[in-house]
């Protein structure tokens, strides 16, 4: 019991401490005259949003989407293309990006959710690669080289995104908002259906649930959230490129989810921070940093089956409450 309560205290400390650190980061970075860290952490937060959205379907619905980065690209290109044509207003850019990523997710979901297992993985991957090559073929929008965005989204003076600090806090607010939304969603009736379909789809159908319909809605919600991450990414980098949609990017998102702890929503945030931090540190030592990253990931996955967040003793509720080693191999 004491070990459990110690873990609960540890978890609370890490979470609230982490949030406090995130809140004071911009002034701290300014004081230390290290604007680079502000950009780095903004980037981490954006990928945390994308990973969290993937966890919603991967961790809770067992929908192994290997093309989740596609929505990152759709969101970013929505901003990029509109900006290219001189439209920077937020009230146009955001709805367009959101509707576009929802539509793309609905189309991909409609086709791929008819399959399962390896086929689902391959089809989502194929769709994302199609969008990647579509991006390359759009010569007018930079094609392979990507598209530079000359101005960030214009919120009409309410929020001035030209400031990196303001962008940082916007990203943080979106992440926290999505985290709250995601947690409500998972605990709701809808979330129960998604989790039930993961646990035993045949039983769900026998009970009377048209599971594919619910899965599709979850798929669209996750894709749309990731599209918002794409909007933020384009704003951070002032740039959009087909590379945002490349399958390796989708793979990175999956690594973030698994590394941080699937099916916890908070875990993928840790995963995004850890992966990007590892990348940053290792690449400063050697250009073959991926050579080191691989084994590190394998070790983490082997020895912390529930990911980084699992080390904090969390996310047990979905793990059959038993010792992890004895449970069914959920992932």
């Amino acid at each position, binding site marked *: 019991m004491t070990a459990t309560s110690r873990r609960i205290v540890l978890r609370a400390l890490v979470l609230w401490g982490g949030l406090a650190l995130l809140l004071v980061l911009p002034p701290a970075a300014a004081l230390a005259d290290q604007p680079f860290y502000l950009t780095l952490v903004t980037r981490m937060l954006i990928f945390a949003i994308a990973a969290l959205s993937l966890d919603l379907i991967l961790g809770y619905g067992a929908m192994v989407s290997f093309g989740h980065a596609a929505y990152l690209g759709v969101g970013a290109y929505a901003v990029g293309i509109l900006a290219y044509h001189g439209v920077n207003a937020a009230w146009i850019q955001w709805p367009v990006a959101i509707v576009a990523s929802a539509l793309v997710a609905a189309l991909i979901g409609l086709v791929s959710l008819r399959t399962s297992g390896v086929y689902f993985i391959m089809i989502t991957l194929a769709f994302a690669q199609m969008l990647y090559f579509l991006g390359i073929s759009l010569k007018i929008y930079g094609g392979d080289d990507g598209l530079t965005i000359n101005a960030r989204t214009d919120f009409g003076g309410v929020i001035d995104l030209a400031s990196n600090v303001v962008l940082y806090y916007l990203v943080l607010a979106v992440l926290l908002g999505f985290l709250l939304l995601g947690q*409500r*969603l998972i*605990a*709701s*009736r*809808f*979330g*129960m*259906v998604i*989790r*039930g379909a993961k*646990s*035993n789809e*045949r*039983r*769900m*159908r*026998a*009970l*009377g*649930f*048209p*599971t594919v319909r*619910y899965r599709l*809605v979850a798929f669209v919600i996750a894709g749309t959230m990731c599209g918002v991450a794409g909007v933020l990414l384009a704003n951070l980098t002032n740039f959009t490129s087909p590379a945002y949609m490349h399958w390796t990017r989708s793979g990175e998102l999956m690594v973030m989810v698994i590394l941080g702890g699937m099916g916890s929503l908070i875990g993928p945030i840790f995963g995004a921070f850890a992966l990007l931090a590892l990348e940053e540190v290792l690449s400063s030592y050697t250009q073959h940093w991926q050579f080191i990253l691989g084994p590190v990931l394998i070790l983490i996955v082997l020895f912390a089956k529930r990911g980084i967040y699992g080390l904090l003793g969390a996310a047990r509720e*979905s*793990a*059959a*409450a*038993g010792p992890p080693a004895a*449970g*069914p191999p*959920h992932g």
Partner: protein
Amino acid sequence: MAEALLEIAGLVKRFGGLLATDNLHLAVRAGEIHAVIGPNGAGKTTLVAQLQGELKPDAGTIRFAGADVTRLKPHQRAVRGIARSFQITSIFPDMSALDNVALAVQAHAGHSFGMWRSAATEAALRTPALAALEQVGLAERGHSVAAHLAHGEQRQLELAMALATRPQLLLLDEPMAGMGKEDAERMVRLIGGLKGSHTVLLVEHDMDAVFALADQITVLVYGRVLATGTPAAIRANAEVRRAYLGDEVAP
């Protein structure tokens, strides 16, 4: 005599060259427990799967509550009131027993696109779920994770889930499978308690249970109906005794 709740006419299901269901006719009246017995491979589970919609018949019709449901999908039939328990226990192992049943209630309590309110605090789901657990004698196990329940308890849980959907027709596929004597007796009492209030199609190998519970018995051999009748008539049927029951069941 009440009109038949379930009417099966000319049902055929082939698996390659094998006729699993061979021109099958069967009627189940509302309120009765109708047992389907037969040797292994007689096509009992195949029949249940076709009634529930998981398998599509190659020919024939299934009428339920006056409507043709032959082409309906499993979830559509479930909404119309057909509930099934599986031969091999089918529950949500990673959820609590109460969550298992609450999910069954939820399937028949309006749409499930609510995304904000916590389902765990919704009395409209929890109260009937708890009542169903109580009905099968699992009330105090509600917060146990389903995977940690004993085998017999899991079978009870499955029955609770089926009951929680307030079905018009319960398809029970070997509910006593793999149970010890005590658990099996409890299950017999449970199913017996449904008599009159529920319509049950019961597939079962345990002949003591079948003859104790059933109002009507249908004997299936090689996918076709060998005989249908009251337990007494089936027991006296020479053909049934030769083909299936054997002499040890003879009174």
